[in-house]
């Protein structure tokens, strides 16, 4: 039995940390690249969204490396994602690969389901070991988000362009290599120090943009064409509504206790949208309402053909809050040049609104 799991941003580093101590035989699919995308579009239904396609591409590339069991999540939300595992399994079987999906329902089984899943791949390791490796994975996840936030802040204000990103990439590798809590803490500290030592542009007031939308395209830089990196190059500080560590903590710990983990956001969305419409559509609308005043603008990422985000996008212009929103659809057809033009025009627009002129 060789396990694999599809990518979502840098989450593979955390999943590795959970599987390593349990002695699981696993293979990480190659990071999303052009081949992944070509395989994915070749074997996927045309109208399905980019998360489905890239995940399928990851699975195919992992199966080529000998994987036969695939860890995956499902759910009974309002979006199609709940059925994806079944369709993906069928496509892989039609291709002649004999694979087994190992699933947990995120919305129904929550933390318990995830731990059970870990236990089943670890050949029934003791619970203490399962819980400690899970906790270490979450610690790595938190560390990944911490250095990413720092890098996104520095990239906008660094004096020599292109300084922060290599430090961040080295940090990612160091987090992946860290074997215990102590070394993890050290590498995060070291990466943070290096980032804070970067020479910055004096008296520069960067714009602040919030990136919201569907979780996969928000978290995965390949799917969103490095939107945060590109905004950083334009001198914009980005923040996101979603960070994997926070999402997992809220989703797995608070939710089972019956607490609505997104209560603030849902409450804010109420005047415009009164219910969950699947995916992250409800939260997207709420984020616009609570972010006005704290941010200069918002970038709304949505997979092409996504029903929840499409609905959210149509609601956005009619809200009372005055916050410029740029919608970007992520798809294999989307060209990066087109996205850059829009990002540049969007930041120019915000700047002109704020200062009345283009020169900073």
């Amino acid at each position, binding site marked *: 039995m060789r396990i694999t799991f599809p990518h979502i941003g840098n989450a593979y580093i955390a999943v590795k940390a959970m599987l390593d101590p349990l002695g699981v035989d696993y293979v990480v699919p*190659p*990071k999303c*690249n*052009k*081949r992944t995308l070509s395989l994915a579009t070749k074997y996927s239904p045309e109208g399905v969204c980019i998360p489905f396609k890239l995940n399928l591409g990851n699975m195919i590339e992992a199966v080529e490396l000998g994987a036969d069991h695939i860890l995956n999540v499902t759910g009974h939300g309002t979006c199609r994602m709940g059925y994806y595992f079944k369709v993906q399994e069928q496509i892989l079987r039609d291709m002649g690969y004999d694979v087994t999906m190992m699933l947990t329902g995120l919305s129904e089984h929550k933390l318990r389901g995830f731990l059970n899943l870990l236990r089943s791949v670890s050949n029934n390791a003791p619970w203490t070991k399962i819980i400690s490796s899970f906790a270490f994975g979450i610690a790595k996840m938190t560390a990944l988000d911490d250095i990413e936030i720092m890098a996104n802040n520095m990239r906008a204000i660094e004096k*020599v*362009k*292109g300084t922060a*990103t*290599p430090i961040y*990439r080295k940090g990612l590798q160091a987090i992946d290599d860290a074997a215990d809590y102590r070394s993890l803490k050290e590498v995060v500290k070291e990466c943070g120090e290096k980032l804070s030592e970067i020479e910055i542009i004096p008296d520069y007031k960067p714009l602040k943009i919030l990136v919201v939308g569907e979780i996969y395209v928000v978290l995965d830089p*390949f799917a969103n064409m*490095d939107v945060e990196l590109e905004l950083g190059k334009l001198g914009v500080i980005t923040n996101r509504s979603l960070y994997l560590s926070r999402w997992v903590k809220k989703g797995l710990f608070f939710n089972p206790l019956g607490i609505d983990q997104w209560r603030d956001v849902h409450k804010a969305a109420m005047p415009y949208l009164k219910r969950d419409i699947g995916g992250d559509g409800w939260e997207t609308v709420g984020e616009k309402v609570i972010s006005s005043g704290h941010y200069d603008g918002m970038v709304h990422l949505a997979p*092409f053909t996504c029903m929840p985000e499409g609905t959210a996008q*149509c609601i*956005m*212009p009619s809200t009372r809050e005055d916050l*410029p929103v740029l919608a970007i*659809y992520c*798809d294999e*057809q*989307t060209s990066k*040049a*087109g996205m*850059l*033009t*829009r990002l*540049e*025009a*969007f930041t*120019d*627009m915000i700047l*002109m*609104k704020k200062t*009345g*002129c*283009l*020169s900073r």
Partner: protein
Amino acid sequence: MQKKVFLGIDVGSVTTKCALMSENMELIAHRYIPTSGKPIIQIQKLMREISSEIPSDCEIGSAGTTGSARYLAGEIIGADVIKNEITAHAVAATHFYPDVRTILEIGGQDSKIIIIRDGIVTDFGMNTVCAAGTGSFLDHQALRLGISINEFASEAMKSKNPVRIAGRCTVFAESDMIHKQQMGHSTPDILYGLCQALVRNYINNVGLGKTIEKPIIFQGGVAFNRAIVRAFEEELGTEIMVPEHHEVMGAIGAAIIAWENYNATGKKTHFKGFAISDISYETSTFTCKGCPNQCEIAQLKLGDRVLARWGGRCEKWEYISNIKESPEDAAVTG
């Protein structure tokens, strides 16, 4: 002291435009030529032509580029500012029409709408996954019906009963047009039907969720087509203004932004001079082998010196001054 003039170049997918503005922001000269898939050669051609238009007591104060090849053009001429085409169009339109509230712009490969309130851009939209109804499509259809694009408007204006064409997608539009033509509808009726379909598609897609208010101006190459202008006026039920130099508004905008930048910073221009028309630049591509992504990197070279590189997902090749290894090393080490 010599007087300054300001240069703007707009290199689009289909046409390359250039505008020369005086210190008082009056248009001195402009050019409009096809890009023909050879942006560098066409930029050089434009520079040769425009250099003869500069008054003898003037010199270039600052230069700006825009359009989809703005970075390439900026590198070649030594631009002081490189701006996206949405900002450039908005700046030019508000310069000539300070009270404008909506800008419709249709070019060769893309179409945009820009919403302006109190002289400031408040919202914009651009065609996303569909290119239906841009200049190239009109060109193609005119060609197919055997009329030149210059006759398109006058033919379409003869229409008495325009037919309804499905305009959502170029493929559907074309098959629908062929269907109507085989049923025996007249060419003017089909052509004007196409104009209406294009306008409907534009309002429903690009203009989705935007409040189109007067005064409305229409710029870009497609504004040459009076039939499209009329279809817009009928659809929106109001008058549309077409600026005299609608086809070079992007280039004018780039020149204005260069002028603003010059006034704000007072810096000496990086403009490389008109001699660049005679230099032969070399462009090439290579595949980076640094990671599985295998980015295709394009580079612009002058002799042995690399001027610029584009196309990588990471920062490895992007900042020329930071780069230590050559592409050849990367190919080996990868």
